């Protein structure tokens, strides 16, 4: 089972805080990979909040091809952060090339376009880069989005973090998602490392999604270029969240109703019965199964944790005003926020969604039996 750790903080914090928490939980993962999502950055990138940042790994050839590709589309480099390896390459980690995050000045016509169009363009560029990179194995991109950096690598989280020198001010962020991967079902693949990102939506999971194939087939058939990849059975969780938010216009309170709907009896007395019934019926293809705990972050910085219908996976949320953490084990939480009141920790149950808004004031629990905010 993978170990998960996420932080939401009012002030930017070092990603190492999350990595160290993963290290405390080390017994539970074999260090077959690490993934890091950093959002709402505090370092130099904070000055260019609107500039999309491309994060990935590039070979020499890949970099040249990237520059040509971006040039052609009128993107101009604004700032580049190169994570140059500081130590010897850790055992099991392949030598891949340059780990880089690069912010771009976008072309004028894109600036004039609507936000939705811009966002679609960013996604299209990321997908195109990933596909061309896969052909020659020279470009790997994890995200292309404003104020967001992603790092992924195969190997033990702490060793990789030291290798890449992740403890640098450029990477300080207010929202951090980190996963120590326990590879179980599939071959080790860089893209299979959590978290998964699509248009500002990012999730990671510890567990298994047995409904993977039908859900994947469904998402693939939606005709949306961003629904691709699927190297991991839980990648679909991120895309379902994206579908819920952007295609259905439903907020975080609805996510759990999509993936683990209430039973008919539970729905009977519910104030939003008609709506929930309709969601259950039409989104039936998106119902997940299998033991899993999902932690995620939404575009505006809301973080959440949900459990599968039977609550077969551990997960805990805690912290204090200003900083909150989501962890798959309490020891991770203890390591990252030792000065919190552990009695206020929350372990979301099978109907709950634990939510921490970007203001980082409190953990709210949203129970599926409660009435819902009107869809917007």
């Amino acid at each position, binding site marked *: 089972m993978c170990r998960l750790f996420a932080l939401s903080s009012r002030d930017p914090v070092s990603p190492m805080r999350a990595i160290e928490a993963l290290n405390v939980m080390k017994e539970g993962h074999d260090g077959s990979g690490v993934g890091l999502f950093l959002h709402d950055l505090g370092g130099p990138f904070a000055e260019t909040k609107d500039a999309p940042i491309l994060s990935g790994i590039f070979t020499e050839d890949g970099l040249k091809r990237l520059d040509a590709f971006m040039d052609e589309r009128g993107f101009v480099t604004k700032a580049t952060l190169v994570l140059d390896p500081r130590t010897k390459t850790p055992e099991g980690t392949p030598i891949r090339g340059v780990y880089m995050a690069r912010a771009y000045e976008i072309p004028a016509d894109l600036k004039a376009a609507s936000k939705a169009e811009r966002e679609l363009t960013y996604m299209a560029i990321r997908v195109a880069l990933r596909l061309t990179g896969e052909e020659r194995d020279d470009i790997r991109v994890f995200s292309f989005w404003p104020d967001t950096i992603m790092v992924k690598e195969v190997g033990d989280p702490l060793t990789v973090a030291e290798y890449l020198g992740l403890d640098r001010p450029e990477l300080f962020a207010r929202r951090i998602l980190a996963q120590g991967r326990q590879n179980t079902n599939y071959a080790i693949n860089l893209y299979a490392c959590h978290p998964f990102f699509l248009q500002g939506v990012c999730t990671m999971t510890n*567990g298994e999604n047995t*409904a993977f194939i039908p859900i994947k087939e469904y998402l693939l058939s939606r*005709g949306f270029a961003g629904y691709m990849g699927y190297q991991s059975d839980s990648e679909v969780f991120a895309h379902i969240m994206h579908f819920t938010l952007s295609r259905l216009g439903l907020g975080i309170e609805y996510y759990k109703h999509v993936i683990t709907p209430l039973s008919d009896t539970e729905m009977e007395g519910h104030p939003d019965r008609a*709506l929930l019934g309709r969601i259950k019926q*039409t989104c039936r293809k998106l119902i997940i199964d299998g033991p899993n705990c999902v932690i995620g972050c939404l575009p505006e910085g809301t973080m959440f944790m949900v459990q599968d219908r039977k609550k077969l996976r551990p997960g805990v949320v805690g912290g204090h005003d200003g900083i909150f953490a989501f962890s798959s084990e309490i020891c991770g939480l203890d390591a990252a926020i030792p000065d919190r009141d552990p009695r206020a920790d929350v372990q979301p149950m099978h109907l709950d969604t634990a939510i921490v808004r970007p203001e980082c004031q409190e953990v709210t629990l949203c129970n599926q039996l409660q009435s819902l905010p009107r869809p917007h």
Partner: protein
Amino acid sequence: MQSTAVITPSTLSVVDLPWQVEWNKDTCTLCGRCTSVCPVSAIELGVFRKRSVEATIALQKKPTNSYSIYYGIRQRTDPAYRCIGCGMCNMVCPNNAIAPRLRPEATTLKFHNNRGGAARTRGGRRNDTGSLLDQIKFIRISMLTDPALDAGRHEFELRTLLGRVLPPEDGLAALADNAWVPAVREIYPLMIGSMSFGALSPNMWEGLVMGVSYLNEELGMPVRMCTGEGGCPPRLLRSRFLKYMVLQIASGYFGWDEIIKALPDMKEDPCAIEIKYGQGAKPGDGGLLMWYKVNKLIAAIRGVPQGVSLPSPPTHQTQYSIEESVAKMIQSMSMAWGFRVPVYPKISGTTTSTAVLNNLVRNPYAAGLAIDGEDGGTGAAYNVSMNHMGHPIATNLRDCYENLCIAGKQNEIPLIAGGGIGKNGNLAANAAALIMLGASAVQSGKYIMQAAAGCLGSEHDRCNVCNIGVCPKGITSQDPRLYRRLDPELVAERLVDVFLSFDTELRKIVAPLGRSTSLPVGMSDALGIGDYHAANRLKIKYVV
């Protein structure tokens, strides 16, 4: 007895018959029950003559003959009266003195089944024991990487949707705008396949309806039963139990007068309307209710004269094109119930089923597609149609499901698969395999007959006299002397047993696969098969 037998081209001996009756002279008490119960008069009381030669020792006297006679059971070899292996004689024999035995190598009868130039017709089954569905294994088992679910303790939602399901965007928009949405029923994924009231005896039908009502009302299992062609008893049409029925309108339109007339008095809407274009066992042949079974009651319900054969034409004769057939019929049937009832066509598995499906994708009123593979069907048909026509269900269903995936409509038009489910007794495994290949629901008629009513038919051409109204168990007969044998209450009880055990078995399959909150429709990654070509064709794993 003739002193010299006349040997003609079609004189057969007992050994030429696939079913041979073994009779034991020593234990037989000559009660005569077997001959009276035999549905086809294959056995008759016989008088046998025995000659013994009596020779004295050392030939003091000349040897003499003595003649004696004894009575016994003689098997007839006339093809029209050949033994069908039903075993009724054994069932009634107090001493087990008589029993049919199958001799599969005796094939001569096959060449003489067409006496008078009439090709053989029969009821029942395809008489082929092979089953691809039986070869499919469930290979993705949560065990080491993740905890498996407990089939006995965890909660399961093994329900499926029947009816046109809107895409999520449209469904939510329609709710916001208070717009019309197609009717969708949440039902149990195993449906009782269409077997018409004319084909089944009144007792059998009553038993099934009772069982279905019990399952729904006492056990909370939303099991649905399809009626097949031929209408529905008027009392049922006007009862609250109608909601458990899927009414079928087939090409003969038999019984539809009654249904239309009952419309204003209906307390409940039927679960759905099934428009039958084809049936797995007799594709292209239509239905065939033979005159033997058209008694007064059936004639009245069907609105036809008594004692005439009632073949349904192979197509709906009032329509001349597929567009008209599918689109208009669906629309007019929907209209008849105020667009509150799902309407879907049922076709035989065929190479063109994807074309039908593509028509349905664009039809907002189409509520699903039922496909019946070659092993399906229970009714009467020509031998040649049953044995040699039809398309296996697995590939047909898979093609259709993949077509839907391409169109992005998977599960929005539910596919109902039938044909050979449980033909060798593995009902739950076969059903689960079809569901994982893409069926939203499965339907079975034959298994239900066999399990709930003790039908004697097998995949070895056993019994299969359903068509001529002499069903020895009273399942498919309209003769009160025969159907009195079947106790409806006991049929209902057995039906409940069948569904409950099916439910347990289905859980035992899906729980280790890690599924419990939705039916694993299209979960093809869980399937494997030891046949390389089948694996490629079905796009599942090849495992040996």
